[in-house]
């Protein structure tokens, strides 16, 4: 790892490799779930310590305990050998433990600067907030991190990536010695990931350490020095990264071997099921046109903010389109509301499952049947038994980890929540399914299951649009790939010709196109 920069890190007084933070025999029980059972974890200075495990293995729970968000039921936590208690997140921060949580914790109505320095505002006259100084401080911090975000902008107006960067900036503003990152790259694309890695590199010093949680194995290989594996709330192993290959890690995580997948033969079809012409939205999308053939998977690749989600949302009527035409099965249709889309047999699985996918306080059954209520209604009355059966069926098919179909979604881990969203759309039996980041936050084992499922669906004649920021996934799954950049489709690639390089080329074409248009216009 690179040496720290000249930034305001705490003065290095120790040596790399000393024990910094320890969890010793920590347990945590939630109603219905034993999330952690006698787990030990040791973090040493100077290391990037990867924490891996399947969905629901307990990674986030462990980190929430180490950052004062949750209280553990058993075991103890030590910082530099001394036993500590962390009753609140503040106490953790004061001891130098900063976290970037899997979920964002930002105050939408406040500005970037106000978010970063909340609770630490510079004052004049002892009690008046000095906003000018605050903005200056934030600007300096953001510049130092190499991110160009206006400190005066309201957070609600930022992109997901920019929000993630604000979270990171905030965590780093504490000059902490421990930085915990829970899937920080889930919302980032490759270039942004590079920025993040550089930031992590700058942070590391002989007195600091990073805990890094991710489902992306390449990142773990690239970044980490130590790897700890959790499985079902139990500690499995801690090993130097150099001693592990990716298949080793996966085997430790899932306790079984994953068949390395082979892309099935491209499916040939000439029957367009969905045609989108000249789709535009204000202000981003311009003239997006594509055709989805029956039985194919059309991948959508692009950098963060390229407009893929926006395309999907406009297409299903979740956001208004300013222009464009949608043709389903040969006949033009008017879609102004998601209900219209579903009526036309188009379902959309959102990238943000908590906001757009799930009813968190309802149970697995209610969520599974949500899009198919009329099918469970007889004479106006809902049939509870039938709904439960169906939910149970999908739990088994998708191997969703839940105590029962009566469990509230809130209590499932991220990945298992994602499976329930999948079940909802599979149950609705749409002809066209738009999957937006279907494997975001899903562990490798479950990922493979979802891939198999997508294949099976296309075999059954369903057509799929798959939006994904994981290049490998797009390459592996798609018959054809549409690449977007800056609100336009910059090219289509056939499965046979597509490579990471070609996708990247198309995905970064926006400056060229932008220049072209300005020339045309002038």
């Amino acid at each position, binding site marked *: 790892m690179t040496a720290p920069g000249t930034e305001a890190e705490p003065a290095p007084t120790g040596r790399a490799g000393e024990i910094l933070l320890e969890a010793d025999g920590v347990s945590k029980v939630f*109603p219905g779930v034993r999330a952690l059972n006698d787990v030990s974890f040791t973090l040493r200075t100077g290391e990037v310590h990867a924490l891996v495990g399947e969905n629901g293995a307990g990674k986030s729970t462990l980190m929430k305990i180490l950052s004062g968000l949750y209280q553990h039921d058993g075991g103890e936590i030590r910082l530099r050998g001394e036993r500590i208690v962390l009753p609140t997140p503040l106490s953790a921060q004061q001891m130098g433990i900063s976290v970037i949580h899997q979920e964002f914790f930002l105050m939408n109505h406040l500005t970037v600067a106000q978010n970063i320095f909340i609770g630490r505002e510079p004052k004049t006259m002892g009690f008046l907030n000095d906003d000018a100084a605050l903005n200056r401080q934030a600007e300096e911090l953001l510049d130092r991190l190499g991110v160009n975000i206006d400190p005066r902008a309201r957070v609600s107006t930022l992109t997901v990536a920019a929000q993630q960067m604000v979270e990171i900036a905030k965590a780093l503003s504490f000059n902490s010695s421990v930085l915990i990152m829970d899937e920080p790259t889930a919302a980032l694309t490759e270039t942004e990931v590079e920025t993040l890695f550089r930031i992590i590199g700058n942070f590391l010093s002989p007195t600091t350490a990073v805990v890094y949680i991710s489902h992306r194995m390449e990142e773990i290989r690239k970044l980490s020095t130590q790897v700890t594996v959790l499985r*079902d709330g139990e500690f499995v192993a801690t090993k130097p990264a150099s001693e592990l290959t990716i298949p080793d890690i996966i085997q430790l995580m899932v306790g079984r071997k994953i068949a390395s997948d082979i892309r099935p033969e491209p499916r040939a079809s000439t029957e367009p099921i969905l045609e989108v012409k000249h789709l535009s939205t204000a202000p981003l999308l311009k003239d997006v046109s594509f055709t989805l053939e029956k039985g194919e998977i059309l991948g959508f690749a692009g950098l963060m903010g390229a407009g893929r989600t926006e395309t999907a949302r406009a297409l299903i009527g979740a956001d208004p389109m300013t222009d464009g035409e949608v043709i389903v099965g040969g006949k033009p249709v008017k879609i102004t509301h998601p209900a219209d889309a579903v009526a036309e047999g188009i379902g959309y699985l959102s990238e943000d499952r908590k906001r757009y996918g799930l*009813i968190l*306080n309802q149970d697995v059954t209610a969520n599974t049947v*949500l899009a198919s209520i009329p099918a469970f209604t007889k004479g106006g*009355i809902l049939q509870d038994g039938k709904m439960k059966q169906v939910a149970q069926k999908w739990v088994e098919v998708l191997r969703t980890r839940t*105590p029962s179909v009566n469990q509230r979604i809130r209590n499932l881990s991220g990945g298992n929540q994602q499976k329930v969203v999948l079940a909802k759309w599979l149950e609705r039996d749409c002809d066209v399914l738009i999957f937006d980041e279907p494997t975001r936050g899903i562990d490798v084992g479950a990922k493979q299951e979802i891939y198999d499922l997508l294949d099976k669906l296309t075999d059954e004649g369903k057509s799929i649009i798959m939006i994904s920021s994981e290049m490998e996934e797009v390459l592996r799954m798609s018959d054809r790939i549409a690449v977007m950049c800056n609100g336009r489709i910059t090219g289509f690639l056939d499965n046979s010709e597509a490579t990471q390089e070609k996708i990247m080329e198309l995905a970064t074409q926006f400056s060229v196109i932008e220049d072209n248009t300005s020339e045309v216009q002038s």
Partner: protein
Amino acid sequence: MTAMQDTAVTGRARRGIPDRYKAFIQQGMVVLVLIVLVIFFTAMKPNFASWGNISSLLLASVVTGVQALGLSFVIATGGIDLTPGLGMAVTSVFGAVLIAQQGGFGLPMWVGILGCLAAGALLGLINGLLVAYVKMQPMIATLAMMMVCWGGALVLADGRTVSLRSIEGYDQIAVGQLIPQVPNGVLILIVLAVIAGVVMNKTAVGRYALAIGSNEEATRISGINTNRWKVLAYVICGLFTGISGVLMSSRLSAAQPTLGQGYEMYAIAAAVIGGTSLRGGRASIFGAVIGAVTIQTIFNGLTVMGVQDQWQKVVLGAVVLLAVYVDIMRRGGKEE
């Protein structure tokens, strides 16, 4: 696979009560509070427990009960409706003006009843459209509509009470006794509660209302026309407001334009005592009725005991706090 099954097994066997039983416990609590109150008042004044008193007490709960039933649908969607109180005033005056012999149009009784219900549904429709399509915050939209109702009732009644005493049989709607010793109003409340219970728990209306109250965006993206269902919830609430208008004017044999101010607060309190969460996504029809009865039990019991009005309000406030506190404790001090 084994590991997974293990989690599942442990999960099931763990301490803590499964969610689906919690609702029953909550309702059990509410009923318990009510029973304690009844025992207390009976001990203080044995007279309290006479059927005559109980049946008048129940009759007195009908208006708040009906309003709380309707309100449950709106609250389920995460909204609120402040119009039941003065909406009752304006709908009852409207219905009364249609049928009153003096100062009215003298139309047949059923026209007045339908008029009252229709006015309620229309009020709900306007509330619903403002909330769902104009995207106003429910509290504000219905606060404004409450003011409109208030003025509207006075304007319609031209400042007077509209007497319905001369309408043969109008008072029987609420106070008549199809079943001996049971006022029709009470019967109507029970029937409405059963209907509301089925609609809330066993039909798409309730299912979607609760889904919208939990996560509107997710419900919408699931292909459900959330706006339409939301409007429907407000229309149902308005319809129940209209029904309460009929029942109130029947009980009093008159429609009074100023009667209703603050009544929405009782309806809200009834729903809350019954375990409905104002955060949306949760509703208890049974609880709403019990809540309304609890409120009247407090008022009636204290009156029977000769306690002054001012204290009755203090006690009601305390009981609301207690009911909510118990509910919160039951859920382990956490929000849903």
